[in-house]
Structures are given as C-alpha cells and as structure tokens.
C-alpha cells in the first residue's frame, strides 16, 4: 500500500479528496449521491471530459492547446449553418468534425512545421477561430434540429449514455496509447527531451501534427455532442472551455513542462472538478463560491502533492 502511494501520490490525493467530498455529501445531502442524481448531473461534463483526452496527450509533450473552446464554437457554427441550408444533420455533423480537424491541423502546422510555441499559436487561433465563428454566423443562433439528432448528446444505448460511452472509449484508447504503445512512449520522450527525441529518429513533427489535429477533431465531436444536447448552435458556446479542460488535466497531475501525465489522473481530475462544482452548487446554491472552491482546490491539491513528495525525498 505504501509503495502504491509512493508511486501515485497525486492520484491518491485526488481519490482521497473525492471520497471525502462524496462522504460529506452522503451525510449531509443523501439524494446527491444517488445513482439517478449522479447520472443526470454527469451530462454536464461530457464535452469537457472528451477534450481532456487529447489535452492530456498534448500536455505530456509539453504542448498546450488553448483553442479547443473556440474550435468547438466554429464547428458548432458550421454544423448549424450547413444544417440551416438544408444539409442532412448527419452530413452537417461530419462537416463540423472535419472543420475541427482542419482547425487542429492548422495549429499543428504552426507548431510542428513553423515551430512557433504552441501557447502562442493557440492563443492566436483562439481569437481567430472564435472570430471566424462570429463572422460566419453573424452571431445568430441556429436551432430546431431533428429529435433523432439528440441521440448523440442525450441518447442512451442499452441503458448507457451515448456521450458517456464516447468519452469512455476515448479515455480507454488514450490509456492504451499512453501505457502500451509506441506512440505513447514517443509522447513522453518528446515531453522529456524533444531534441533528444528528434536525434533518436522519433517523428516529432508528424506526431505533433497528429496530436493537434486530434484535439481539433475532438473539439468537432464535442461540438456535435453539445449542439445535439442543447439543440442550439451558436458562436459563443464553450467560452472558457479551454481553461476548464487545462484545469482538469493539471489537477489530474499532468505537468505542463511535459513528460508527466496519466489518463487515470485526468479522469480523477475531471471527476473531482465535476463533483465539487455540482456539490457546491447543490448545497450552497452559489455560483461565485464554486469559482473560489475550484481555484483553491487546484492550488491546494498540487501544493499538498509537492509537500508530500518533498518530505518523502528528504526522509
């Protein structure tokens, strides 16, 4: 047990916090921890959870993608506008996902080929993609999607939530990639030492292109899920989503300096943020308080981790 703790101190801290939170909730507000409540509340996080998957991979390579929220908005607008002009919703969805791919690919080109720092590239495209979304749609919303379309964002398949299934599959795939695959190993190598990786023949540029394209595509998929769930496509959706996603991944223990990150940690980070947000909202009905709690949670969890591991190193 001790060895397990040493190996995964951060994961255990998260599990501890999550357990503590849910136990407290169970004592104070039993209905909050019922399966039904949790299942219903879980619908709020699927897009964010989906985006943490590519973000974890990118952060492991010491990169970052701040444009995911804006990409989602652009994809949603493309979905809405093509649908409005008579395209079947399935085709429109596909176009939206392709738009995401294109956005991500463009980020990837700037990062991998032109070699601009990803923070700068995606800070710029964050404005640009959101701006294109506003420009194309003239900020008008589109709604009235067919009921069948709701399947992706709200539907169930053999009693399992469809978006939940999508997220679970994405996380599982990422887990396999990170722990078992050549690509995963390359990601860590790039994060630890990009130059040495290049010198070892790791196709760094191609991998980065792939990662950012993947992030864009995921944002496209997330946009489809969002539009399907909320029945509206608009240029202002997912504002601030990028920070939520980064917060969850970082809370999950990934290092923005690269080389460190686990999908299980990310999952725990997503769950902890989600449960904290929902419970604070449930009990105190106070939106401002959530911000304070989440901010403090982020700092404290990492602080506790560094303090614990430092003591361990000394003893």
């Amino acid at each position, binding site marked *: 047990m001790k060895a397990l703790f040493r190996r995964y101190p951060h994961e255990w801290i998260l599990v501890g916090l999550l357990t503590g939170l849910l136990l407290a909730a169970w004592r104070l507000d039993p209905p909050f921890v019922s399966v039904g409540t949790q299942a219903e509340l879980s619908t709020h996080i699927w897009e964010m959870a989906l985006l943490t998957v590519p973000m974890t991979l990118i952060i492991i390579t010491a990169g970052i993608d701040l444009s995911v929220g804006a990409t989602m908005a652009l994809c949603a607008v493309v979905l809405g506008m093509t649908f409005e002009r008579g395209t079947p919703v399935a085709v429109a969805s596909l176009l939206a996902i392709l738009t995401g791919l294109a956005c991500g690919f463009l980020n990837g080109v700037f990062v991998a080929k032109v070699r601009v720092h990803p923070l700068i590239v995606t800070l710029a495209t964050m404005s640009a993609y959101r701006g294109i979304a506003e420009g194309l749609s003239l900020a008008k919303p589109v709604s009235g999607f067919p009921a069948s379309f709701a399947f992706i964002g709200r539907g169930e398949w053999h009693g399992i939530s469809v978006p939940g299934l999508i997220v679970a599959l994405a996380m599982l795939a990422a887990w396999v990639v990170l722990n078992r695959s*050549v690509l995963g*190993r390359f990601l*860590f190598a790039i994060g630890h*030492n990009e130059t*040495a*990786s290049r*010198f*070892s023949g790791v196709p760094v540029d191609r991998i980065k292109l792939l990662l950012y394209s993947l992030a864009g595509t995921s944002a496209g998929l997330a946009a489809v899920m969002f539009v399907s769930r909320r029945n509206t496509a608009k240029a202002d959706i997912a504002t601030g989503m990028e920070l939520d996603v980064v917060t969850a991944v970082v809370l999950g223990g990934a290092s923005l300096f690269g080389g460190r990150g686990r999908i299980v940690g990310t999952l725990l980070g997503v769950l902890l943020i989600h449960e904290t947000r929902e419970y604070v909202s449930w009990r105190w009905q106070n939106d401002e308080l959530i911000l304070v709690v989440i901010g403090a949670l982020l700092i404290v969890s990492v602080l506790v981790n560094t303090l614990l591991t430092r003591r361990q*190193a*000394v003893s």
Partner: protein
Amino acid sequence: MNTPFLDINNISKTFGGVRALTNVSLSIESGEIHGLCGENGAGKSTLIKVLGGSVRPETGSVTINGQPLPLGSVPASEEAGIAIIHQESAAFPHLDTYDNVFVGREIRRFGGVVLDRARMKTETATLLARLEQRFDPRTPVGDLQPAQRQMVAIARALSRNCRLMVMDEPTASLSTRETGVLFRIIRQLKADGVSVIYVSHRLEEVFELADRVTVLRDGRKVDTVPTNAIDRAGLIRLMVGRDVSDARTREPSVRAGVVLDVDGLTRADAFTGISFQVRAGEVVALTGLVGAGRSEVARAIFGVDGRDSGTVTVNGRTLIPADIQAAVQAGIALVPEDRQRSGLAAPMSVKANLSLAVLKSLARVGIISDAKEDALAVSMMNRMAIKAENTEVAAETLSGGNQQKVVLGKWLAASPRVLILDEPTRGIDVGAKAEVYDLIGKLADGGTAILLISSELPEVLRLSDRIIVMRSGRISGELPREEATQERILSLAMPEGAA
C-alpha cells in the same frame, strides 16, 4: 610547520540517503596546484560545491589562512577569495559576455544602484585578451562556441582577485591551443601565490600541472601524493581500485564497400565543399580546432540542420536534406556532443532510453511488447556493462559515463550502418572511457562505418584508421593512421601562419 592555506576537515554530505562525501579532509598550500582525481560519482563535484558555498555539508569545517569559512553560502565563499569554474555549463546564454562575467557581483556606480557597463566591458575585454580570445564582449554567450563559452567561465573566475581557484574539467571543451593558453594562465596564477585545485579526467594534464594530487573514490579520500612520486598507471589504480589497461590500439578492420559518401557539402557560415567517404568497418576521425565546423558537418549529415549544396549518400541512397527521419531510416546514427541536451531523455528509464530508436521493431500494430523490450534492455545493459540498479531507474540517476553508454546502447540496438560519434568520451572517467573505446572497436569490427569527432588527439590517434583535419570550415588535409602524429594533425588544424 606553518598552517596550510586551505584546510578541509572531515567534510560529509548525503543527498537523499546517498553519501556523496564521507569524512574528506584535505589541505593545500598557497601557490600550490593541487590535482583532484576520481571517477565520476567519486564526490569531486560535491566537494567543489562545498567550497563554493552552493552545497552545505552536514559535518566538517573549512579554514582559509586559519580563518573558518562559513559553509553553505556562496557570498561567504566569494568573500573568502574562492573562485570556481564549474563543470556544468554555468553560462547564461541570453546574457552578453560581460554580463556573464560579472553576474552576482556586478560593478556598480551611483551608490551601487546602477551597473557600470563601461567598466564591465573594458575589464571583460582585458580578460578575454589575456585568454587570447578575439570576440566582442557584447556577444551573447548563447552565440558563442562551446570553447569560447568555457573561456568566458574562466574569465569570470579570473575577474576576481581570488586566492583559491577551483577548476572542474576546464579543458573538456577546449582545443589544444586553448588548453595551452589556460595552462600558461594557471602557472601565472601559481607564481602570484594563488592556489589552484585542478580537476580533470585527462591525467596527462594533471601530471603536467599539479604539484600534488588527491584521489577520491566513492566519496572518500583514497590518498594525496606528490605527482612526481606516482605514475599514470598508479594514479589510475588509485582511482579505480584495480588495473585498467588503456594503451592498446585496435587492429584495422576496414572492408571494401563505401557506406557513407559525403560530396561537396556546403552550408553558408559553417563549412564549404566537404567531401569524404567512410567504408564499412572503417573509423574515420574528423578533427580540428573547436569551431572548425566539425560538429556542424555531423549535424548536416544527420539532417539536424539543412545544407546549401552537396549530397550525402548512404549505401548508394541519397538523403533528403534536413530530415533526421530520412537519415535514421538510411541507417545513420548520431551520438551527439551534448549528451544531456540532445542525447538522453534523462528523466525516462534506462529501458525506455535504450529502446527509443528501435521501438517500432519491438511492437506489433503499435503496441509495445513488454517481453521484447525487457529482453533488449537487459541484453544492452549487459553488453554495454551499464551500471544501474535495474532497467527501470531513470537515466538521469546514472553517472556520466553510464549515461553515455546508454546513448551508445540506444544506437547499437538499431545496428546502424553509419555511426557518428561527436566527442564520445567528453567528461567520462577513465574506466568508462576504456569501455567506450572497446565498444567502438567492436562496432567497427562488425562492419559499421564510424565517423569520430574528437578534440582529444590521443583518442583520435588510437581509434581511427584515417584522420581528416578541418580548418575554418574546410578540409585542410587527410592523414592515414600510419603517418599521423599529434604534431602533423596540429599543423593542419592551426590557422595558417599561426603554427
């Protein structure tokens, strides 16, 4: 007998449970040049950091001229007149040369608020002139060659009127000419009564300079002996604790086919018209002064940098410029000069580093086979005699020599056709060096074409079949091994009219 100038008494230091120094005592007279030898991990650098104040020991004391030195404080050590040239690159690449020389104790004016740039510049210029360097003191250090950077570090130490100068591997990146300059300065310091602690893996330098030499092993002092009372083999025996043979030259193993063919390779501002061939099983040395363009040629061949004209052909296949992938696929491997920066993913495990270049061959449909990877790592650990607890420890926890063996092992696993070695033994201790030499020999015997870049002439003479000498970006001559001597190489390497 009077008290010694510097008296180090029973110093002990542990890092996270590992004893780096155990009860080390040492005394040095004023005006003495004192050699400090030991394998990597023997505790030399820690001892130096204790003297410099950046590491505080658990026990022990240091006195200078009978005055106790407050330990664990950089300013206190500087105050006491100790100047240190650190082994790790201690330069600030973004800062100008004169800023580098004076960081931490800048020359000030207007009551200490504002920098006195003019004086810093002129003083730096004077120091550089003394070191026979000709670059502008305003040059950012990041733009300098490694040797020039080292000279800046030396200038930084010289800029203070110190009473004890500690030099940790000062010649690792210096060419012969610059080493000569440094030695002259060290002797000057000695004549002025300054004590010098000189740390080097190049034992001939220790014998040339030092009055006495202290040997550390596993954090303990083995002995202090006058240099005229011991020979090279004896010193090595003290360091390693056993006999190491290091004078054997290898038998040539050149075969027929040309593997690497470089033709008319040119890159503006770096090198011009470089043409040579390396055959299977041949070791070709590319040597010259630091800054002659040797590493740049290697980088261009490997596709790290682009090229303006010329071709690189491996086994008849012409490579795409500026594409490391293509070079690796064609069978070229490069063991870079700067191990930490370009060779290792240091925080990753030894296993992951060893398998990095061949990972795809260990995998099916992109999923790594644990069994295959473990087998590879274990066999490489054994073949390279890498000293590590197991294959899972992080590469950064190994000693420099073992790290270099990991980098070499990574490429050996890929069985390259062409292996480019850029300063493969820099900063490696004697024992590990001999092992690396053995490995290079074995690789050549196995038919690998080897391009060796090295500033250490004995190493070049010992290993290579042919020696190509570069001078300011061009090939200035080529010598077969039988005809090569240190003098002939140097005369080709020195700028015309200077030698």
